[in-house]
């Protein structure tokens, strides 16, 4: 079973891996976006960690809703509302439970992913974060490591796709051949999850 401390560790590990990969995310965002994804995610997750440290929430649900709210109010762009919604919806799905099982985590994140799809009006294959989130959540049924692998493969699989949503979509066919930065940062969340579950 996973308690609030586990989720705080997850968010802290996510902040660390995003911090490490920020330049890489920004590089990916240069040819098809506006070269700020790394910096924005870095700012948002740093704010999440500060908030969680200042006032550690008591339940897994409270950790993720607080993290989601912080992302919305500090990231901006499309990433803020989308990642914020992902975590908030997952947190809400946990309710007041003091601990959640791996299975409940998968269901909760699934609800978050559905909310992201609805908010962004997008589906897998549109070259967005969903291309990493959807396979990642599915593979959670197997293991945290499988989820990390599946989401990373999902991010890599965005390379040949043409973007249909977000700023990259304005490039039309020229978006083909580049890995989606949003899918890449989504895969980092699963990498952080696998790391803290060890």
């Amino acid at each position, binding site marked *: 079973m996973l308690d609030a401390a586990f989720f705080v560790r997850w968010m802290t590990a996510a902040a660390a891996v995003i911090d490490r990969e920020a330049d890489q995310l*920004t590089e990916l965002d*240069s*040819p*098809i*976006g*506006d*070269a*700020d994804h790394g*910096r*924005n995610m870095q*700012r948002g997750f740093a704010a999440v960690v500060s908030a969680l440290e200042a006032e550690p929430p008591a339940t897994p649900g409270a950790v993720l809703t607080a993290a989601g709210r912080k992302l*919305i*109010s*500090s*990231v*901006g*762009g*499309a*990433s*803020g*509302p*989308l990642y914020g919604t992902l975590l908030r919806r997952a947190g809400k799905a946990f309710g007041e439970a003091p601990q959640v099982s791996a299975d409940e985590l998968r269901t909760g994140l699934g609800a978050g992913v559905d909310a992201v799809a609805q*908010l*962004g009006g997008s589906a897998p294959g549109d070259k967005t974060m969903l291309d990493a989130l959807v396979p990642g959540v599915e593979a959670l049924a197997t293991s945290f490591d499988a989820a990390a692998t599946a989401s990373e493969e999902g991010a890599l699989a965005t390379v040949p796709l043409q*973007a*249909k*949503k*977000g*700023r*990259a*979509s*304005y*490039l*039309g066919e*020229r978006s083909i051949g580049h890995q989606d930065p949003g899918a890449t940062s989504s895969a980092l969340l699963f990498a952080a999850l696998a790391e803290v579950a060890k």
Partner: protein
Amino acid sequence: MKMLINVAETVVADALRGMAAAHPELVVDVENRVIVRRDAPVADKVALVSGGGSGHEPLHGGFVGPGMLDAACPGEVFTSPVPDQMVRAAAAVDSGQGVLFLVKNYTGDVLNFQMAAELAEDEGVQVASVLIDDDVAVNDSTFTAGRRGTGATLFVEKIAGAAAEEGMPLERVEALARQVVASSRSFGVALGACTTPAKGSPTFDLPAGELELGVGIHGEPGRERRAMMTSREIADFAVDAVLADLDPRLPVLVLVNGMGATPLLELYGFQAEVRRVLDERGVAVARTLVGNYVTSLDMAGCSVTLCQVDGELLRLWDAPVQTAGLRWGR
């Protein structure tokens, strides 16, 4: 790349401190990133709030003042502001007549303003929103996130601002803003990429002999790259692309907009070519504005926006405006 900055992290805050010092007629909340006209809330007036990523100056903060916006929310460079900013702005400028959010069509702006509208309404502020999407370089919404909002933003903010200043009710101001959006189209070209402070190098490579057609205002590449063209050739291409989507029988407002690094000497030369094409196509020009208004940091290049006007839109365009970036009639 050399830039006149301290560090990338404080670029927006530093600029806001400068705006505050230069414009005592504005209230600039540097910490919360909200720019408000000093006399807000103006009694019995619909309030206009816009915002978006920084890096497009004078848009939007430079258009706050009598006859245009009541408040602007600048985000990080090329990143939309967050809902907290818009909620704060709405609360600061609402006189009880409602607030109109003017939103450029980018996924981030749309999502954040949408969240802000819900939060502001929870706090008892009546909010309407108008989406600005004028860029003809973008395929329709089944292929993309929809047309980008670019140069038409200036027309919308000016005309809706004048309507609000006259005391028109929210529904009427909103309808006029929608009319301006429906009547406006834009097309942009880049002769060079821009450099964001965070990245420090150009966002895309553009060799000396080439240009990008159909660019937006975020340093993103366009839809097509060609060998460098003359001002005359670019005007033919851009104006025809815009006119293909407009009714040529109506007179137009013309905005020849610089992207930040193209001198007025070039922009006026380009304006002459734009005017020639419009004359050749039999399109009447009602008013023309030339300058850097909706920029993309230091991107070299320009955009053309045309807005078809009737008598009322033209009257509202001509109405007095008193902002840092646009002022006349007083």
